[in-house]
């Protein structure tokens, strides 16, 4: 029971919370032409979203540009690596390492894919750097990293 509770808490703190933060940055500060705004509209969340976005000009002046533009990348990669590490905690090292390396690679590779034109979007070195920051934070921050990097 305690182990299960601890796992849920870890999932919330290391996976859901970073995703919620990253999503909030997008919904508050980024152009509403993003696909996620269409999703919100289909879910009937437009009025609530507009109400929240009315607060964004005041908040935006408090945040540096890189937080708005690139921090979601770090939060996403942190969540992806943390999720994989949580699932594979205590599992045999070889396969755990494979999945965790895969999770580490997705964010940076997607950015590099934009650089060479394989994935639509605009390459941004700051996004790449922050994907890597998220990966490093997730790897070093988790207590079971010694199992991951064996």
């Amino acid at each position: 029971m305690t182990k299960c509770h601890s796992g849920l808490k870890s999932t919330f703190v290391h996976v859901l919370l970073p995703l919620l933060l990253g999503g909030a940055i997008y919904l508050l500060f980024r152009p509403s032409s993003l696909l996620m705004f269409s999703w919100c509209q289909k879910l009937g969340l437009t009025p609530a979203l507009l109400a929240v976005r009315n607060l964004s000009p005041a908040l935006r002046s408090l945040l540096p540009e890189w937080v708005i533009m690139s921090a979601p990348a770090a939060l996403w990669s942190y969540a992806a690596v943390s999720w994989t590490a949580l699932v594979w905690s205590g599992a045999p090292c070889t396969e755990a390492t494979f999945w965790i390396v895969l999770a580490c690679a997705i964010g940076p590779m997607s950015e590099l894919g934009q650089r060479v034109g394989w994935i639509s979007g605009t390459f941004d070195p700051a996004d790449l750097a922050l994907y890597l920051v998220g990966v490093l934070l997730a790897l070093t921050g988790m207590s079971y990293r010694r199992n991951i990097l064996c």
Partner: protein
Amino acid sequence: MLRKRLFTLGGLIALVILATGTSDTNTSGSGGGTSQEVHLNATVNFTGTQFVIQNNDSFAWGNVELAINFGLMSGYSLKVGQMRAGERYTAGAMQFANSDGERFNPFTHKPQNFTIFCDTPTGRGVYSATWN
């Protein structure tokens, strides 16, 4: 072990799907720039029972959604579809409904704000007005 693999794959696929939500629906080709939020040029009048909305822009609004008294978890909305440039649209106050399906009653509720949300040729359009 199979369960772990499925959990991992499922989680990563969900994360990738979430990430696609950050793609811009108005970019032209790969490497296109992001479009901006467009402030709509509109006029909204309330007659007591009807809202009269005029599109003063030189372009059509698509996928139009009108909202009254929106809040964090409240508000009444109405989907209109398209409004051509210069078009005037009249919406009865009771056509607006909240997420529970309850209609806006102009005799018991005062309209305090009005919002238009739509697609424009250059991005998502927004208009917001308040009444004292």
